[in-house]
């Protein structure tokens, strides 16, 4: 006894192409075969599809292969080899063949390393720059006192009375805190017999300072240290003279004006 299941065209229509293409599986194939036994329209559809496939295959077979097909492999391999020879990888491989690029690279790296090391040693242990226009000299200059403070005033009496017309106005330089002042005064004091330098000593020291190299120097041509010594001497001479004129050290001043004179000199190389 066999079980026959009748199927309609609608049920199998969508599967006809799958059947022709061999994509139907197991029970679906059996069902299709049973249907094709009884349905001429669907059988005709299957036949048409198969004929169309046969036509395509026949047309394909009838086309002769050109000669070039069999020689394709040598042409392609030659081109592939030429491309490979021009690739970066091949270039690198050629460069490493005799190691000359490797030597060049290693030499460059070593030279860079040695140069860097040498520069570091020089910077760390080398002598400090002593030039006036060097960076360290500039920093020293900027770190020195801000300038010179001048008072322009008229001495008054010991008891604060109004200034007499006879007394002349004086210009007084206030201590600018220059580091050379105390050193110069100590040196002068040691040279004098009574332990304190006189105005004459100061003037002599000043003359010696500004004529040190056989001609009169100016502030502009002096080195900062010499200039500082000269300024200290001038300041001290001014103090002596003020004491002589009006006893500024013990009296009071009517201050008319206060001036701060400041300057920073930077000498550029080559100027």
């Amino acid at each position, binding site marked *: 006894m066999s079980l026959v299941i009748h199927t309609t065209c609608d049920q199998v229509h969508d599967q006809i192409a799958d059947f022709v293409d061999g994509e139907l599986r197991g029970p679906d194939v059996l069902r299709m075969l049973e249907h094709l036994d009884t349905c001429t329209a669907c059988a005709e559809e299957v036949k048409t599809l198969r004929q169309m496939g046969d036509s395509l*295959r026949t047309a394909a077979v009838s086309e002769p292969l050109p000669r070039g097909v069999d020689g394709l492999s040598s042409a392609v391999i030659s081109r592939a080899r030429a491309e490979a020879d021009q690739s970066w990888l091949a270039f690198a491989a050629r460069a490493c063949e005799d190691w000359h690029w490797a030597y060049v690279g290693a030499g460059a790296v070593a030279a860079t390393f040695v140069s860097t090391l040498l520069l570091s040693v020089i910077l760390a242990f080398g002598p400090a720059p002593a030039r006036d226009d060097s960076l360290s000299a500039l920093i020293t200059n900027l770190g020195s006192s801000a300038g010179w403070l001048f008072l322009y005033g008229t001495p008054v009496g010991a008891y604060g009375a109004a200034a007499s017309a006879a007394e002349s106005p004086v210009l007084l330089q206030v201590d600018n805190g220059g580091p050379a002042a105390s050193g110069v005064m100590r040196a002068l004091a040691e040279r004098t017999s009574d332990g304190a330098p006189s105005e004459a000593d100061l003037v002599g020291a000043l003359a010696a300072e500004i004529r040190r190299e056989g001609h009169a120097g100016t502030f502009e041509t002096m080195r900062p240290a010499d200039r500082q010594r000269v300024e200290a001497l001038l300041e001290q001479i001014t103090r002596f003279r003020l004491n002589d004129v009006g006893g500024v050290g013990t009296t009071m001043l009517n201050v008319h004006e206060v001036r701060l004179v400041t300057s920073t000199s930077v000498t550029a190389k080559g100027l």
Partner: protein
Amino acid sequence: MWQDLLVKPVRALTWSDAASADWALVQQCAAGDEAACARLMSDHQRMVYQLAFHLLGDAQEALDLSQEVFLRVFRTLPSFRGQSTLRTWIYRIVVNQASNRLRWWRRRHRAQQVPLEEHAAVHGDLPDQRNAAMPDRLLQQREVADRVWGALGQLPFDQRTVIVLREIDGLSYEEIADSLGVAVGTVKSRLARARGTLRAALGGA
């Protein structure tokens, strides 16, 4: 007595054997083995040329395309991971290259194209010298083939590709889907449309 015979078990050849043979060949080619490359080409060159010819319809173009395909195969072989078979992977490259070439060709030559009717009106129909000396049977076969190629040439590229891969190259739906990078359902619908158009064009061929 049969018990004394030495029986050597022989394992049947399976798809995985073929895949591993392909894989070994791919590895050798990727390592720059020219003999392996030549073997890979000789195994696939006819397949590649014929597919290119059926998609482009021109022997010289198909030959050029085959060269390009194999160059591309060798360039991209290191990226082949074996997710598909080597054959379907190569098919995919052929289809992509053919599609690119047709697109390029259409852009470049669209302005120079002359409709066939216009050409025939000016120059008259060309005599087919090739068919003059053929026996009747071959002549009839040739005529059918020409009609088939003419109908095939009228199909859109995606439909032509599936019908060629199915009917001429004999790929399964799954292999076609794999080669084209589309779903099996898309393959079936394209195939149905292509068959409908071909049937109308060929009639009783």
